[in-house]
């Protein structure tokens, strides 16, 4: 398939990109440092290791997604490799999707790698890995899908630096929006409240994918939230990709 051809090319590019290995290095460092931190605490050491581990995997995954996602389309335009590519019988949608899936495949591999290292460190401390851990990782991956699609969208019309800032803002807003929810509850009903609710519904809510606390404290997770969070992630990603396509469709490559 043509999408697969572009995807595997994007994957090759990402895997051979040195930035990726720098980030991976830092991720491994922070996973190892969880052991050191565990020494400083009084009481439950397993919790510290789990917290640092999940945070590292999540944070570095997001950084990889943003740093590589913002160059996805921009680099092709800037280096003009897109000229010969689009002169072949491939349409722009196939190109975008190929780029997206190529990066997702790379991020998946990275996530698996980081998780394996974490699991080894964790098991050395004779902790117990529950199924919740893997579910939480799955949702981290879903969050990465959404962030990548946002980075891809900005990559279609903006330079990597600006795109990174915008994508990072998306991430921050996504984790702050529940604060907006608290604010809305305190508001008096009326037009302002309605408008704020509309804005709130539109803004991303990345906390839907955050199951770190549940994993660390082994709390119950209502099964409904799996389905709804999953659908939310998929549909929002789809929405952003459509937006990216609209921007990219009639773009002139001067």
């Amino acid at each position, binding site marked *: 398939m043509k999408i697969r051809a572009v995807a595997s090319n994007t994957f090759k590019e990402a895997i051979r990109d040195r930035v990726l290995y720098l980030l991976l290095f830092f991720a491994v460092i922070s996973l190892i440092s969880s052991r050191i931190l565990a020494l400083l605490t009084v009481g439950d050491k397993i919790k510290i290791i789990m917290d640092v581990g999940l945070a590292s995997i999540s944070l570095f995954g997001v950084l990889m997604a943003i740093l590589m996602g913002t160059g996805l389309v921009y680099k092709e335009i800037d*280096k*003009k*490799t897109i*000229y010969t590519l689009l002169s*072949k019988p491939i349409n722009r949608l196939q190109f975008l999707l190929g780029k997206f899936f190529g990066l997702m495949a790379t991020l998946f591999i990275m996530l698996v790698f980081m998780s394996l290292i974490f699991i080894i460190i964790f098991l050395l401390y004779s902790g117990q890995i529950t199924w919740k851990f893997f579910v939480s990782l799955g949702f981290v991956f879903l969050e990465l899908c959404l962030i990548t699609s946002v980075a891809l969208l900005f990559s279609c019309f903006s330079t990597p630096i600006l795109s990174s800032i915008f994508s990072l803002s998306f991430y921050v807003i996504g984790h702050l929006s529940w604060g907006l929810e608290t604010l809305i509850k305190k508001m008096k009903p009326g037009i302002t409240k309605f408008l704020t609710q509309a804005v709130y519904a539109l803004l991303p809510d990345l906390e839907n994918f955050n199951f770190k606390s549940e994993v660390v404290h082994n709390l119950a997770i209502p099964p409904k939230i799996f389905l709804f969070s999953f659908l939310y992630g998929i549909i929002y990603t789809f929405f952003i990709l459509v937006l990216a396509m609209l921007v990219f469709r009639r773009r002139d*490559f001067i």
Partner: protein
Amino acid sequence: MSKQKILEIKDLYKSFSSGFLGKKTKILKGISLEVNKGEIFGYLGPNGAGKTSTLKCILGLIFPDKGNIKVFGFDHLSIKAKQKIGFLPENPYFYDYLTSSEFLHFYSQLFQKQKTADIDALLKLVGLEENKDIQLRKFSKGMLQRLALAQTLLNDPELVLLDEPLGGLDPIGRKEIRDIILKLKEERKTVFLSSHILQDIEMICDRVAILVNGEVINQGRLEDLVSQEILFTEMTVSQINRKELENFGKTLTHYGNKSLIKIYDQNKVQEILQFINEKKGKVHSLVPRTQTLEDIFIGMVKQK
């Protein structure tokens, strides 16, 4: 030669807006041209005339404001059209991290249902078979240009669009490319060659269009545009007194005992030959100069 129209452009307009206030600059101001099957068509113009922009319109890399483009009778953006096109951009640049065979393999996957050329044979054709496993970041400019040509021919295209293919090549490279273009013509392919180097166009093109400032100011067969009339004759002679030579024409330079003389009046050519014979002088060269494309070109550009 059949008169099947491979490429038809009608009333192509394109302007770009730049700057914060969106000031519009007109790049293409109503271009119309036709390219027939099996010919080498030269698209000629100074830098900034809009040649590359025209090519980008044909390929769907930029979208015209107005106008119609048909390739093989199909809409230029259709897959059917793209399957038969090969494009060689100016200053080609490809993915650093791939080797040349990986790169060609990748592109060949984009021609899903078509049969593509054997990659090794293609690399051999452009002289890159020894470098097929070296990453492209290590390629020189000449090598990249050869690879660009290879990717152009991947799908055995019937229409080949070349944007300044001979720029930056050494003389041997230029001859090789010219030979490949002529070979394409032999294979009944159509070539659209965009360049600002007139000598190349003159050597191989059948028909040309001249683009100045976004408008096609002239198009037609090369012979029709360039008159065969002799403008002047240049002769290099020796052992003749300079002053005597000036009766026939204008002496340009002297070096040693040789003189270069330019004779405008064709009648005087026979006279000077007789004169030199009588005076026991020597004729080293005799070159009649006809009107060249450069002459027409400069004339037309000056008119604008």
